């Protein structure tokens, strides 16, 4: 009878919080005692960023029920806004933690604005059409950022599009077209990554268990019925989409400020797909699943280093096999039987 019940959800939310805190403490201690390899150490912040990305996409795909193939676009906006903001404020805000926070808020805000701009027209479309438009949007963002030049000198900010057509006496380039942002001061820390994950979880869990969240999920389950009980389709679809976009923006800032250099190409269609893979493997609407999938699959290619050339091939095969094993009725039953036998033996 267990599967019939959806209650006790709140209890599992607390378990997710506890799990994330525990993981943070363990890795912090390992990092402090030097038990982590340097590559793993360097992966800590990106893993946090991808976890937030997966959580935020899960809000769109799992909770709102719309397929987005351009989520990296929002990450990109957050990354470049954050990197430019952090660089521009280097003198104004000496405290790196505070600067990171401001950069992150700016990144999230701009991504939210983009979310509104895209969402208002696009959320009227259904299913695969919405997916293709999000894909198109992601590519457009990439092209725009590739052609954007921003510089700052003593006279203020300079901006140009397509060609670099301003000259500066002193100062520096903040965003240099296809070269992206270089020489980023790495102010993202594992602690800030952890805090962002926690904030993301609080936002998503609290939203889902509130009036607005119920309206969003009602739209996912049956749009016509939701309208018939007086739910404003545009408002709640947009709400879900924009919250998701702004979280992706914050994740982008976190990620950008942990890298030396970022380029627009880094946030292309493949990144969107990568995050979607995390979400689907972790389970739609299952936040802990997204966290585990994102963390494991971001680290996995590093762990597969010894296979060197074969690692991405192995990754692809593992991905296909997991999808087959979890979605094919015959294989599913087969696995269920194996686990049942194991369980029986234990007893």
């Amino acid at each position: 009878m267990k599967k019939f019940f959806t209650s006790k959800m709140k209890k599992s939310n607390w378990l997710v919080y506890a799990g994330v805190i525990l993981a943070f403490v363990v890795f912090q201690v390992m990092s402090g005692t030097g038990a982590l390899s340097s590559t793993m150490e360097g992966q800590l912040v990106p893993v946090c960023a991808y976890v937030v990305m997966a959580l935020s996409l899960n809000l769109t795909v799992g909770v709102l029920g719309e397929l987005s193939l351009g989520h990296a676009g929002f990450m990109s906006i957050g990354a470049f806004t954050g990197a430019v903001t952090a660089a521009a404020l280097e003198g104004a805000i000496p405290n790196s933690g505070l600067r990171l926070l401001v950069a992150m808020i700016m990144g999230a805000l701009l991504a939210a604005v983009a979310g509104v701009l895209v969402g208002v027209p696009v959320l009227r479309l259904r299913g695969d059409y919405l997916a293709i438009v999000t894909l198109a949007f992601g590519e457009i963002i990439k092209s725009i950022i590739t052609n954007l030049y921003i510089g700052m000198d003593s006279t203020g900010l300079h901006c140009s599009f397509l060609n670099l057509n301003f000259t500066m006496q002193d100062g520096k380039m903040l965003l240099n077209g296809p070269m992206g942002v270089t020489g980023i001061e790495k102010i993202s820390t594992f602690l800030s990554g952890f805090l962002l994950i926690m904030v993301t979880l609080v936002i998503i869990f609290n939203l889902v268990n509130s009036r607005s969240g119920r309206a969003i999920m009602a739209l996912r389950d049956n749009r016509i019925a939701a309208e018939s009980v007086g739910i404003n389709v545009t408002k709640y679809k947009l709400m879900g989409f924009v919250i998701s976009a702004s979280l992706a923006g914050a994740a982008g800032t976190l990620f950008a400020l942990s890298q030396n250099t970022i380029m627009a190409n880094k946030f292309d269609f493949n990144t969107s797909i990568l995050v979607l893979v995390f979400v689907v493997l972790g389970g739609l609407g299952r936040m802990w699943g997204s966290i585990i999938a994102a963390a494991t699959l971001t680290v996995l290619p590093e762990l597969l280093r010894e296979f060197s050339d074969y690692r991405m091939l192995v990754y692809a095969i593992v991905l296909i096999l997991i999808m087959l094993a979890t979605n094919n009725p015959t294989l599913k039953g087969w696995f269920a039987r194996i686990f049942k036998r194991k369980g029986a033996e234990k007893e």
Partner: protein
Amino acid sequence: MLSFLNHLINGISLGSIYAIIALGYTMVYGIAKMLNFAHGDIIMVGAYVCFFAVSSFQLHPVVGLLLAIIVCTVLGTLIEKLAYKPLRQATSLAVLITAIGVSYFLQNAAQLLWTSNPKLFPDIFNGAAIKLFDGELIITVSTLVTIAACIVIMILLTAFIDKSKTGKAMRACSEDKGAAQLMGINVNRTISITFAIGSALAAVAGVLLCTTYPSLVPTTGSMPGIKAFTAAVFGGIGSVPGALLGGILLGIIEIMAGAYISTSLSNAIVFAVLILVLLIKPTGLLGKQIREKV
């Protein structure tokens, strides 16, 4: 004026390639309701097969093309059997992710087998071209062949779908799989045939693509694949004439945007036009509007 004509012809040529790829997307989508993201990578495999046949084994380009078609058809059918068929009952998202897995697999296998160093695709037509208006207007043979191939394929495919028994079965399956099955149509076989045809078309597209853009790498197919998919949606996914129209228009827009606005923004403009079209006509140019039953 002549340069405009030049761009237009180039646009139609590129659009023809997109249209041929889009046909594969649209047929598979129409019948299996899945986005076959590995389609673009089958193009790449086709191009590599033809490349090795022509440059390493010194075979005639036509033989190379036939080899590419055979290999891609077998590959497409195999992928369908191994990866997609077990998921017939699964959600479309699960199939989508599997298709992405297949796409990764093909790209990385190609990288292992053939390295990521670009291969220069041989110039099959030796740069032959028709020069008009004192060389102001140049139409290469490859352009002509591409456009001709697209027209021939469209005619053959339309006839096949309209007239043949298998074509009728395909249309029936795309309308209602359950009803088709009850009428004695082998749905699984029909889907496999659709994949085979789509993959054969991908091989042709791959060879044509590389005669125009000769640099061949393991990711050659992904961007044209995405754009062709866009073209299919643009024209109305599931519709064969829609794929042709969408492909050609997309090709023209891309070349024109590159020529008159900015090369680095041409992709962005293509996608922006797509978004505009979908906002005005949410099911694409030739897509059917379906009234939701309440």
